[in-house]
C-alpha cells in the first residue's frame, strides 16, 4: 500500500488563534479517511495547508515521498492533489463545460487537443450527473449542483488524492446515498485516495476506513470508526460544542 501523504507537526495560526496545532497524520494509498471535529476545529485549515492555499508556520508535508510544504497551489495540484471547497467556488461567470475544462487545462499537458478536452469535460459532467448543463452558466446552478461541478473540476485534474470538504452538507437522505455511491466509484474505479470532511456522522462513519478527529486545532483521536465514536475525548469535544 504505502503512504501517499504525510504531515508532521503542522501548525498554522491566524493572529492569536492557532487553527492547526502540531498535527501529525498520514493517509495510505487507496484509503478513504474521514476528518471530523466540531465547528472551528481546523479541518478546512488543514485542507488549505495540504492544497497550498496557506503554508504552515511549522511542520512539513510530503506527498508520495516528496516534500510539498511550501509549494504553490497549482504545483500541488499538478502533483496530484485536488480539492473541493466548503464554501463553493465554481467559476461563476463561466459555463459548466468551461469550469471542467479549466481542470483539464490545469494538468498542463499540451499534447491533448481542444476537441479531446471538450469530450473529456462532457464525460466528467455526465459522471457527476450534470449532463445538459454544458452551456449553462455555473451561476445558474443550485448549491448542490455547484458542489457536483466542483467535484467534476477536481476530478478533471486527474488527482491521486481527492480532498472533499463537506460535499454532503445540505443534501437530503436520497441525495446523500447518490453522493456516497459516486465517492465509492471514484475510490474503486478511479483508484483515488480520499480525505473528506463531513458533519453527517452516519455517512462518514459508514463509508470511511479510518477517522481523524480534530478539536481546537489538535488531533485528539485517530482510528477505525467504531473506535472513534465510543472515545470519551471525542464525545466530550462534541458535547462541549452543544453546550456552547
Amino acid at each position, binding site marked *: 500500500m504505502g503512504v501517499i501523504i504525510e504531515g508532521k507537526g503542522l501548525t498554522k495560526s491566524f493572529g492569536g488563534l492557532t487553527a492547526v496545532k502540531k498535527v501529525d497524520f498520514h493517509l495510505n494509498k487507496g484509503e478513504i479517511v474521514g476528518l471530523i471535529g466540531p465547528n472551528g476545529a481546523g479541518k478546512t485549515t488543514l485542507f488549505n495547508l495540504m492544497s497550498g492555499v496557506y503554508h504552515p508556520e511549522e511542520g512539513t508535508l510530503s506527498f508520495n515521498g516528496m516534500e510539498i510544504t511550501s509549494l504553490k497551489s497549482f504545483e500541488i495540484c499538478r502533483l496530484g492533489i485536488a480539492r473541493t471547497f466548503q464554501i463553493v467556488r465554481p467559476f461563476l461567470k463561466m459555463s459548466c463545460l468551461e469550469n471542467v475544462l479549466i481542470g483539464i487545462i490545469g494538468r*498542463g499537458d499540451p499534447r491533448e487537443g481542444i476537441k479531446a478536452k471538450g469530450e473529456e469535460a462532457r464525460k466528467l459532467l455526465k459522471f457527476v450527473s450534470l449532463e445538459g448543463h454544458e452551456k449553462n452558466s455555473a451561476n445558474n446552478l443550485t448549491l448542490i449542483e455547484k458542489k457536483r461541478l466542483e467535484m467534476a473540476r477536481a476530478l478533471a485534474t486527474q488527482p491521486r488524492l481527492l480532498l472533499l470538504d463537506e460535499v454532503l452538507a445540505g443534501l437530503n437522505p436520497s441525495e446523500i446515498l447518490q453522493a456516497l455511491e459516486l465517492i465509492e466509484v471514484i475510490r474503486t474505479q478511479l483508484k483515488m485516495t480520499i480525505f473528506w470532511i463531513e458533519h453527517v456522522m452516519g455517512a462518514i462513519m459508514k463509508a470511511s476506513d479510518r477517522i481523524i478527529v480534530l478539536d481546537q486545532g489538535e488531533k485528539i483521536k485517530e482510528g477505525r470508526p467504531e473506535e472513534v465514536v465510543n472515545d470519551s475525548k471525542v464525545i466530550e469535544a462534541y458535547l462541549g460544542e452543544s453546550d456552547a
Partner: protein
Amino acid sequence: MGNKKLWISFAFIILALFPPLFLSQYWLHVMIISLFYVMMASSWNLIAGFTGQVSFAHAAFSGMGAYTSGMLTVYLGLPPWLGILIGTGVAALLGFGLGYLCIRMGGIYLSLTTLGFSEILRIIITNEDQWTRGTMGLQVPGFFVEYSKTSYYYLFLIVTILLLIVIYKIIHSEMGLTFRAVLNDEVAASSSGINTVRVRVLAFAISSAMSGLAGGFYGHYLMLITPDVPSLGQMFLVLAMAVIGGMGSFAGPIVGSFVLEILSEYIRVYGEYHVLLFGLIALAMARFAPEGVVGILRKKWRREWA
C-alpha cells in the same frame, strides 16, 4: 465563431471600406484616430476586462512603441515597419518585466506601480530631449512616400482588423479561458492547476505588446511624437472608452472608442475638459452599469426581439 457573428463582422468590414469615398479629410482623420483607440482600448480590455488587472501603463507602452520606432527611423534610418516591429518587441519585453515585478503584488499595488511607471517614462522622455526632442516633439517619417489620409485609413483599418482577430482568437482559446478563470476566482484557479501568476504576466505582456504596436503606427501617422502619447490623459481616455463601451466584452471597447472619439471632436471646442467628463461618466458606468453601453443594448435587444 457563430455564423451570425461572422456575417455581422463581414458586413462591418465591407461598410468600413467606404468612408474615404465620402468623408472630408478632417473626418477621415477622426476615423484613423478612432481606429488607433480601438486597438488601445481593445488590448487594454484584454488585461483589465479579462484578467481583472487595472493597468495604468497602457498609454506608456504605446509611447514606448512610438518613440522606439520613431528614434530608430530618425537616427538609424530604419523603415517604419521594421521600427514598429522592434517597438512592439520592446513594449512586450518591458511589459513582461513590469508585469513580472508587480503582478505578484496584485490589485491596487499593480495599479499604483503602473501609474508610477507611466510618470517616470513621461519624465524621462521630457528630459532626455537630445534624443526625444522633449515637449517640442520628435519629427518622424511617415509610412508612405506620398502623404495620403486615404492610404493611412486603409492601413489602420487592416492593422486594427488583424489585431482584433488576434484578440478574438485569444479570448476564445484555452489561454482566454485561463484568463477568465483567474478573473473569476484566483484561489479556485490555482487549486485547479492553473499557474495564475504566469497567466497574469502573459496577459500583461501580450497586451503591452499590442499597445506598443498601436503606438508605433500612431507615431508614423502623426509624424510628430510628443510626450502626450504616453500621457495619463491619454490613458484615462482609453480607460473611459473601454469602460463606457463595455469591459470584458469583445465589442465594448470598439464601440466605446468610436463613440468617445467622435464625441470629443464636438466638445473639444469647449476646452480640454472632455477627458474629465468621460472619466466621470466612466466612473458612474462602472458603478451602475458595469457591462457598459454594449451590455445595456444587448439586454434591451434581447428583451425586444426574444
